[in-house]
């Protein structure tokens, strides 16, 4: 529960969840229609990276502490 009080961890979790959804959607459904069929994949990967970065930031402080 204490970890959930760290906003970086919460934001990291949120973007890991939404990023996984976007990447998962691309893997299951495939390329979407329109001019940018891989936008879900690339955005999802960007979200995942940002999510990992925020979670690592929250863990780093814990180690330092």
């Amino acid at each position, binding site marked *: *529960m204490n970890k*959930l*009080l760290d*906003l970086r961890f*919460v*934001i990291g*979790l*949120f*973007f890991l*969840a*939404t990023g996984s*959804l*976007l990447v998962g*959607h*691309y893997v299951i459904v495939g390329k*979407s*229609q*329109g*001019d*940018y*069929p891989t*936008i*879900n994949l*690339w*955005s*999802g990967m*960007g*979200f995942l990276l*940002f999510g990992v970065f925020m979670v690592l930031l929250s863990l780093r402080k814990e180690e330092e502490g």
Partner: protein
Amino acid sequence: MKLQLIDYLVIAIYFLFVITIGYVLKKKIKTGNDFLMSNKSIPLWITSLAFISANLGAQEVLGMAANGAKYGLYTVHFYWLGAALAMIFLGIYMMPFYYGSKARSVPEYLALRFDEKTRGFNAITFAIMTVFSSGVSLYALAMLLNIVLGWDFNVSIFLAAGIVFVYTFLGGLTSAVYNEVLQFFLIVLGIAPLVFIGLDKVGGWEGIVKSVEDSKLHLWKGMSSAATNPMGVDAFSLVFGLGFVLAFGYWCTDFLVVQRAMISRNLNEAQRTPIIASVPKVLMPAIVIMPGIILLALQSQFTGYELPTNANGQTDYNMVLPLLLNKLYPNGILGIGITALIASFMSGMAGNVTAFNTVFTFDIYQSYIKKNASEKHYLYVGKATTVVGILISIATAYIAKSFNSIMDLLQLVFSFINAPLFATFFLGMFWKRTTANGAFWGLVSGTAAAALTHGLTTAEGKGGWIANLHDFYSGTSHAFNIAWISFVVCLISTALISLVTKPKDKESLVGLVYSLTPKQKDTSKVWYKNPLVLGCIVLVTTLILNIIFY
């Protein structure tokens, strides 16, 4: 626009997170101070992002994209001229008085510096403005969900209000601030891909330069006259009206944003909060204005990008962002984009509700109804005020539905209230001779001058309800001119009345007035902890950007 399961899942995850944040923070809330002031325990990076996010409401995200299409690059003035300088001034010069005086709100500072009647005037006008503003955010969100997604208006109102209620009621200001930061990242990361693919589609900045008329791709060109730029504003009203009066009036005195800095852990962080927030603020046009300019290029290069018309038969610029989301985003990322829009509305509403309950509890209830009650008592009052604030917001949303001009009216009311208020603060903080009677009657006369100017002038068919002495080129120009006139009237009235009334003794003004407050030397040797150095860096950067996009 048809959402699929994946989009609804994204929206559901967002709702789940915001409510969970409120629930988790509930355990930390023990007193009224925890609920209404976050016990002054919020780290710098959170206060800075919350500071900018409290302003990142519906008007910002939808409205600035709309202005981008309507006025082009000139819209950037609202950021580089109309925000950055005022935010830096707040951090360097005004925050030491807000934070150092131990005031819990802007009206409370007015009580310490002047008297109770000045505080009461500001607290009541501010409380009314915030709940109305919150209701208008709610109305705009429900309209958007109704038009774009086909959701029922009533369901949208109660769903959005219910979610904001749950997380602000459970976790108070801390919950609102935490959610504002989450919303900030969601808005930026949710709209950034739209800008990226939009730019790619039109051939990058070069494609925009080739496709969009040159008159919409400058900041200062044609500003010598209101007739020679798309904004319909001349350089004087832009610089004095927007850059000085409106910008400083909003960023330096509006408790909605100032509150985010006042909950910092110490004075240095409180000072750096608005300055650090000014960095993303300077960059924000790339996210919120660029979509409007991209749409202009898309309209020039492709078919199918025409904006719909509103009930009055005029082009509905507010549909810029929904149109682009619909055209450029496939399902999946579309859910992210829609959630970003929902987040911006909820952020605006929660910011107003939390500012409302703080001002009502401390500046109205504690000052005039029940003094010296226990902390537990003020916690209950704060929570009850949250319920009332949400209910009034819902009622206001339905009023807004009945009167289609209420948004314009609200903007006007803001310029009536904030512009003269800055004159009061400016004199109060930097001229020790300013008296309580001078401040109060100056505020009243400045507000009256704003109303009178609006009644005697028109723009785009609005105003002139007394007589029509002058017609401005645009509503924007009208607002800028009303602002500077009300500021000047308030400034002169306050000064004149102060000269003939008795000032407070000097001892009671220490910590409240610049010349009577001992200057604290910043002992920090690290440049990034020095507000002055940080402020200068942001200012120079903004100046360079102005030159580049001249």
